[in-house]
């Protein structure tokens, strides 16, 4: 499907439309959609909540943020650096989940779409 011409909505719209409906009815696709939705929601929620706590603490909990931990390192600096760490970890984990749990499922859906008679 790479070379469908420059115009994306050519005369193939009808056959393409039915193919997409078929993909949507594939059970594997339904699982893929549910898992993708769940992991996207989970990662978004983790990111938003953790970042928001940090932001609010920066303006409304300054006593806590100024508390010294070791030498000149205080809670503010450590929690800021933890935002970096959590971003790296979250990105890594999400990518690994996509690669290991979602991509194989996706490959099966694509294979099913290429040979529709084999589905169910």
């Amino acid at each position, binding site marked *: 499907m790479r070379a469908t011409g420059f115009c994306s909505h050519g005369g193939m719209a009808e056959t393409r439309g039915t193919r997409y409906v078929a993909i949507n009815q594939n059970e594997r696709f339904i699982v893929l959609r549910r898992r993708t939705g769940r992991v996207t929601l989970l990662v978004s929620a983790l*990111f938003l909540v953790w*970042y928001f706590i940090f932001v609010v603490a920066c*303006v409304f909990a*300054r006593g806590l943020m*100024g508390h010294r931990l070791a030498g*000149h390192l205080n809670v503010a600096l450590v929690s800021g650096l933890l935002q970096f760490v959590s971003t*790296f970890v979250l990105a890594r984990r999400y*990518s690994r989940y*996509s690669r290991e749990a979602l991509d194989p499922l996706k490959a099966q859906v694509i294979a099913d779409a290429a040979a529709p008679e084999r589905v169910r």
Partner: protein
Amino acid sequence: MSAVSGDARALTFALLAGLVCVTLGITFWARSRTHGAADFYAGGRAFSARQNGLALAGDFMSAASFLGISGIIALSGYDGFLYSVGSLVAWVPVLLLAGFLRNAGRFTLADVPAYRARRPEAVRIAGAVSTVTVSVFYLVAQMVGAAALVALLLGIRPGTTFLGMSAGTAETVTIVGVGGLMVLYTAYGGMKGTTWVQIVKTVLLLTAGVVLTGLVLGRFGFDLSRLLGSAARRSGHGDAFLRPGLHFGRDLAGHPGRTLAGKLDFVSLALALGLGTVGLPHVVGRIFTVPDARTARTSVNWAIGIIGGFFLLTLALGFGAAALVGRDQITAQDPAGNAAVPQLARELGRHLAGRAGGDLLLAFVAAVAGATILAVVAGLMMAASTSLAHDVFGHVLMFGRPRERQELAVARVAAALVGAVAIALSVFARGLNVAVLVGLAFAMAASANLPAVVLSLFWRRFNGTGAVAGIYGGLLTAVVLVACSPVVGGRFAWFPLENPALVSIPAGFLCAVAGTYLSREKPDPARFAELSARALTGVGAS
């Protein structure tokens, strides 16, 4: 004492001229390998994950972040770091959406919501309006910043002249020069050219950051706590320098209302930074330059690693400047602290190898900052001209069936047009605060673009009217609130926050939902089926 010696100035010029020659060479080379729309708009979709990661990071690490953030850290300490945190965490939503966008879109942000509309033309126009508005705001911020920086780096202060130019004239000349050069890069080299320019610049910027950080830490025996203590002592703020509260949401005794407004203003800015990146047209445009969704995700991972590392370096540079250059010298050069890193470079070089060493390191950092400005401006122009040519000309004026050659010609003309508008606005906006302008561009991107993209990917009931309402609603709310904010001032300044994101992002989502339910446009299940199948599997993606 003149801030910049003649030798350093000549050296800076020579290095910058060399860099411009290299990037022009890249541009001409890219032109000879650009044959068609996918090449021009998306660099042939052939960049590797690492290449695109470097370019994405480069688009994001502007001179504003390199010099601006370290400058704020050098003067206000911890609060400058908050910009870095917000800018980095913002890449989590980019990572989440990158794969879907790569599969579902072709060249622009508007590609995705346009899929859900029965009459996609209106969505495309709305998408182009928001893309051009956000890009032009961001462009003006970059060029105004560039002008101030060049004057600073060349040592032209108010009242003195350089080659017969006063500071004001030199700034105008810089704006016109940078803008004109970048129109040439964009119109001529397309996405291939701008991406390679961006990659070269990112490598240079990282090199500069690593070298300077190594030198700073070396001065403190690689003891972070000693660096922090020394910075706090010389800042004149003591321990408060290492805590939040010197720059954002200051506690004003006796003014509880204004104190609260300042704090909410910071929350608003943090929200804009965290959610705006994924709506920035030039960031989204880069996602289409790789072959598939998996490469898109990997490239965002590269970008996260690079940007995270870079912002950690700016932390060391900012505290290093506070400790080694000192507050008085930094503010004497520039009250906003934008010159702190070049000053730090000179101090480190001088300590290492005398005056010549200082001049050399200063010239290197100044030239890298110059290259950074050029590359970011080119990326922004690319995004705006792509949207005008692909969305407005190709899909609206030519009903989705343009001649490819015509559309590319339009893209090149559009680049010149956007460049001219940005140059004109920048000359008028010279006095505006760059950080506020950038925060505003992020707020508009988050309010106008995020709701339309997210809802078209995940909400079955969504339709074209909702997309149009969301884009215009979010954009207008942001613009109106800024016009009535203390930034603009005047009699109508009833809105207490400088950054509108806290109100305008929910407003964007609300308008999108309201538009969907209030319109008579029926939802189209087949379109949602097609879009979600494409977004999740990549079947039929170009």
